[in-house]
């Protein structure tokens, strides 16, 4: 759960990102040397801010869906009623992670067509695994004495889940969500190969027109988003873990 950047650098990065998204023209001088024959230095086939927001929206929707489903599944297989599925679900997570995101994306197209939908499906499926894996770890490694005390105090199964198990597992669950978001941010760019509106559009336009400035700005905006979101999640996890004396 290490922080990637010291706080002042993080603020600087955020300021830079916002400046670039709202006033890209300020940076055109900087990017101009990267393009040839007077090609545009700033992406001109759409608004960068809009694409960024769409990119974030796609990742947010997919991650939210993945979080709900993954945690529900993890809770289910750790209850007595779903215990029979626990060993299998562990293997499935292991196997599932070998599916490359591009393959998931491409194979979703025949089912739902081009556009945002296959991207959402790929991000959702790919995001499930780290969250499920972490939620499972969190729910199966709770301190036995605490669980014994919770039962001994007369909590029902549901009360134990809501009051003890989920709060205690939350830092590990958050780490899974963080992982899923960071993977999702990068994977969403590939969504543009199936015509989803994400920052991948900028990169692919750059690749097609041999415009390095496009590739660079698309890539760096995604990277900056990933770093900032990663750090924000890490801060949340630390806050949650500190309350429990895990640090």
């Amino acid at each position: 759960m290490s922080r990637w950047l010291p706080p002042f650098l993080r603020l600087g990065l955020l300021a830079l990102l916002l400046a670039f998204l709202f006033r890209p023209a300020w940076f055109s001088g900087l990017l101009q040397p990267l393009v040839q024959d007077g090609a545009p230095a700033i992406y001109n086939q759409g608004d960068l801010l809009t694409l960024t927001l769409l990119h974030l929206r796609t990742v947010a929707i997919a991650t939210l869906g993945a979080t709900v489903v993954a945690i529900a599944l993890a809770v289910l297989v750790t209850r007595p009623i779903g215990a029979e599925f626990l060993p299998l679900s562990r293997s499935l997570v292991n196997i599932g992670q070998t599916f490359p995101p591009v393959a998931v994306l491409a194979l979703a197209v025949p089912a739902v067509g081009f556009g945002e939908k296959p991207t959402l499906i790929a991000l959702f499926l790919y995001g499930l695994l780290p969250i499920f894996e972490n939620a499972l770890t969190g729910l199966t490694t709770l301190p036995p004495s605490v669980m014994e005390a919770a039962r001994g105090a007369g909590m029902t199964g549901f009360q134990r889940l809501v009051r003890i198990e989920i709060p205690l597992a939350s830092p590990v669950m958050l780490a899974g969500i963080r992982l899923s978001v960071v993977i999702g941010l990068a994977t969403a760019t590939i969504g543009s190969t199936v015509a989803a509106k994400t920052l991948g559009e900028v990169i692919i336009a750059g690749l097609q027109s041999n415009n390095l400035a496009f590739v660079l700005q698309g890539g760096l905006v995604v990277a900056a988003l990933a770093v900032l979101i990663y750090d924000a999640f890490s801060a949340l996890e630390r806050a949650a873990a500190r309350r429990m004396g895990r640090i």
Partner: protein
Amino acid sequence: MIEINTVTKRYGANTVVDAVTMTIAPQTITVIVGTSGSGKTTLLRMINRLVEPSEGTIRIDGEDILAIPGYQLRRRIGYAIQGHGLFPHRTVAQNIATVPELLGWDRARIDAKVAELLTLFQLDPAAFGNRFPHELSGGQQQRVGVARALAAEPNVLLMDEPFGALDPIIRAKAQDDLLAIQKHFGTTIILVTHDMDEAFHLADKVAVMDKGRLLQYDAPAELVLRPATPFVETLIGAADRPLRLLSIAKAAEVVEPGAAEGEPLSATDSLRDALSALMWSGRETLPVAGEDGTILGHVSLQALLQRAARPQ
């Protein structure tokens, strides 16, 4: 009163608790001792149905525990365990308030109870209430664990090696605190331990278990004087017998009239402590003082030696 009647617990072909019958008088401390794997913890956990008995019945004040849903039963019975099991994400006050909250007490009553218990366990409510468990020392955590178990004013308190994780000095203090608390609330306590010193220090009656069977269930002195089986004798430790006898009696019981020289003993000191003081001071007798400081008489080395000898 807790009546345990031919209670058996089997896991597959493995019988962990084998037809145990015992009756525990109200407002006493019963200590269950035995080696690990003797079934003592399983027996304890059947009383609050953390383990369901395979056979037999358990009644608390006449009521069959199987007639009450497990979680409701557990809200009426205090439960304290080794390593305290405090909820790490809840404050000390929230931890103690667990069962009253489950029972739906109103806020004011809960707050008052939490403050009362913290004070009783020598923890300042203002200073400790809002701390998290990991901010406390081991001894403090253990006290909060017991306070949590007592929060809903249960008649019965089950304790599974509650002092196992404490170092010897804090442990002795915790044991004395427990005796004081038991007097204060009149709680019926059943405590599991493998520490014989602890058992003799705390118990009104001791239950010795081995391989799932209850070998002997008696007052501590009976265990020393009339061990039911060789196993009980070994567990108590043949060499320690006289000292065990001394440790369960108080100085007040052997006071003889007459004055003596030296630092007075307290009437509530155990005879073992009295012997120790006599030997250390090199005297034949020492005075005994009551709680108010008045001299009640003296104890003599001779009387102690008679007390510790095998009865003829």
